[in-house]
């Protein structure tokens, strides 16, 4: 299901949270809205579902207009046929797992084979055995799986994810990432994923929209954003960046301690510390007013000034 947002504006009181924003999310893609807290990404997601109403603009879902300030259209969330996965899972504590999952089918009157549909959805998230449990009897990861099952059981064309992994611990989070991605891509579901975690965004997404202050700074594939950031914000927020001056930066992995090409430029920086990471060292350096971090095979004495070599093509110009 293609999602089109056109000229969306939204303010809370005097604070503008979404500022004339336009974006097209292609059908079947996994798209991430990435940005720091308060950038408007969750508000945007809630506007797609209908939980929040834009002040102005137009929202199209699969060619159907669900919101238009000009035409006075505003379809309530229950009529939009979307799936949604909440940050706090939002499982209803008074219902068993099966009733949580079956809820959408029941209200949408899709009650043929209800039992087997619920079972299939729970099997997909490996929780068939917990069908008669209450949410409070499950671990955090299991609760999250139930909320996935609840979202996929009605076979929506699109599922929206509001930081669904942030309530889990680090190990579980990595595991769930691939599981979640597999669940939606097997079914060809269009996914919109909100996160402030760039690793999550890079590892899962076909497309990333980097957001800041209610605007989209860059909307492209993860590779494109990493190698060609469109703005200083995008460069700083996605991946690590070392800055030569206000307009030039490079990625740490492109810095070398020895010259091996005639295209290399050389910069002299002072070491201010080395951190041992196990497989390598993280070297902290001072270059003019900028602090750099690069990788190294060996520890370097604090206080030494050493030359750093960077291929000309790896130095990115960012125009603000």
């Amino acid at each position, binding site marked *: 299901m293609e999602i089109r947002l056109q000229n969306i504006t939204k303010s809370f009181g005097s604070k503008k949270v979404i500022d004339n924003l336009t974006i097209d999310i292609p059908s079947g893609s996994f798209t991430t809205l990435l940005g720091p807290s308060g950038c408007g990404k969750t508000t945007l997601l809630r506007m797609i*579902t*209908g939980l929040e109403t834009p002040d102005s603009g137009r929202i199209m879902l699969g060619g159907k207009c669900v919101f238009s300030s000009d035409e006075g259209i505003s379809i*309530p*969330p229950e009529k939009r046929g979307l799936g949604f996965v909440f940050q706090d899972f939002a499982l209803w504590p008074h219902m068993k797992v099966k009733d949580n999952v079956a809820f959408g089918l029941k209200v*949408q009157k899709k009650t043929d084979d209800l039992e087997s549909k619920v079972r299939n959805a729970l099997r997909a998230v490996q929780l068939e055995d917990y069908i008669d449990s209450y949410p409070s009897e499950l671990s955090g990861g299991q609760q999250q799986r139930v909320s996935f099952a609840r979202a996929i059981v009605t076979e929506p064309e699109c599922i929206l994810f509001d930081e669904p992994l942030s309530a889990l611990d680090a190990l579980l989070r990595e595991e769930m990432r691939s599981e979640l991605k597999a669940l939606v891509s097997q079914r060809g579901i269009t996914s919109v994923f909100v996160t402030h975690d760039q690793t999550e965004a890079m590892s899962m997404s076909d497309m990333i929209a980097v957001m800041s202050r209610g605007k989209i700074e860059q909307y492209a594939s993860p590779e494109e954003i990493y190698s060609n950031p469109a703005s200083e914000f995008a460069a700083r927020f996605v991946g690590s960046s070392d800055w030569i001056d206000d307009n030039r930066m490079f990625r740490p992995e492109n810095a070398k301690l020895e010259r091996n090409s005639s295209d290399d430029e050389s910069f002299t920086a002072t070491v201010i510390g080395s951190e041992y990471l196990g497989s390598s060292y993280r070297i902290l350096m001072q270059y003019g007013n900028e602090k750099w971090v690069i990788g190294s095979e060996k520890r370097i004495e604090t206080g030494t000034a050493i030359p750093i070599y960077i291929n000309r093509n790896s130095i990115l110009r960012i125009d603000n």
Partner: protein
Amino acid sequence: MNGKKTIAFLLITALVFLIICPLLSIFAEAVFQNGRFSLSSAIATITENENAKMIGSSLLLGILVVIVSSAIALPLAYIFSRTSLARYHFFDIIFMIPFMTPPYIASMGWILFMQKRGLMQQLFPDLAFISDWFFSLAGLVLVMSFHVFPFMMTMMKNAMLSVPSSLDEAGAVLGAPFRVRIRKLFMPLLTGNYAIGALLVFVKTISEYGTPSTLGRRIGFSVFTTDIHRYATVAPIEFGKSASLASVLVGICLMIWLLQNYITMRRTYSLVGGKGSAVRYRKLSRPALVAAIAFIAIVVFFSMLIPLFSVTISSLIKLRGYGMRSGNYTTANYIKVFTEDTQGINALLVSIFLAVSSATIAAMLGTIVVTISRNCGKKMKKTIEGIALLPEMLPSIVLVLGIMLFYNSIYKAIPIYGTIWIMVLSYVVLFLPYTVQYVTSSYSQISPSLVAAGRISGGSPSYVFLHITLPLISRGIMSGWMMTFIIAFRELVTPSLIAPTNTLTVSTYINRQFEQGSVGKGMAMAVICILFSTVSLLILNKAILREKR
């Protein structure tokens, strides 16, 4: 105006009609004379020698009760929050007993215990001199303090529990001895809470009608509530005077609530929680432990055992003249309540009817109030909550007087004055805040995403309310219902002001039997009433625990 606003507006109109209009009738009665505005008679009433004295003694009573109940509550709060005795949670339930015993029943228990040839003099003839001392302001202060102290104890206990031990330990590590730590670290953190607790106890005391109407009347000690009642019921009836005194009382209460609000904002500290903010219990030395247990025992003895013992024994005594001796015990009083005439059984039925109907209406209205107030604008929400919680801030005698005046004046339009329905209405108004508070707290435990998830799954707003919201707040509604049921069952103020002629409730039945000499029958009904409240409360606790997931 959209739909939501219209509904909120209708609700506000209904609440104004139920709560604000009666209050305004009081002020109107106080300052309008023959249709003309005049403050002079109100002022004359207040400055009348007798009334000025009464105002003075009401305030004095309030202050004394604050002092005495603090002396009981503060040590207990410390013991049950900071020492090894805090582990025994059953004390939480035990200390609910004095609060759950209707004050008029406890006072009667005390009177029967202390009066000439009463239970105490029969048991310990040498202690007769205490009786004279008891039937004075001192006794009144004691009995009221024994009723109200659990309230302050719970407040202070919770406040003390919120002060993490690490704050105290930090002082100890830096070398401050125990006394200095209590004075410089512990007490300053609690002064705000204490001030709030003290003000609430003060308001509760000057608003209380039960004890002054029994023990206070016996010793000729008039306060606001008894005088408001007297002017409104005893010939020559003077509603103007009653209303003037009620207005002054409302003024005092509102001033104290404002003061309390101000202190809450200015003098309470938000103690940063998080890891390690636990309270660790102090192990008491042997003498300290003995002292603490002795203190608990004394409080339990005076606040619970004496009145309950006295009421129970009196209900079992055949002939009061013979006193406590074998052969003079009987269960006949209990049988007489039901068989001697129809008054007893009728009073029980009326009370049960009032409790069930008012609890049901108040639970529904309260749920509607909270649900609507959460779905309309901020200003509307504040207005609705403000009005709905008003009955808790004001003395019930004032509200009942207002209801009486207001529905008397609109009798032609709504003829419920003088029927049992005005009592139902009055109960609903008085106890609406219980449901509002319970349901509000249930709502606050529901994450907004639970409702959002229901909407996105395809449920319409009403479907989501029925299948998700309502089951989740049902425990709050149930608690509100039960609480209203228990309190309404033994309510005294409403029936003694506006009961239709010849309609007795449990409370007025007990009162009448006590005053007209059938003490045994009265006390038998009192025991039934206490047992009924206690059993209901236990069922309520069970139900809440069972539903907790």
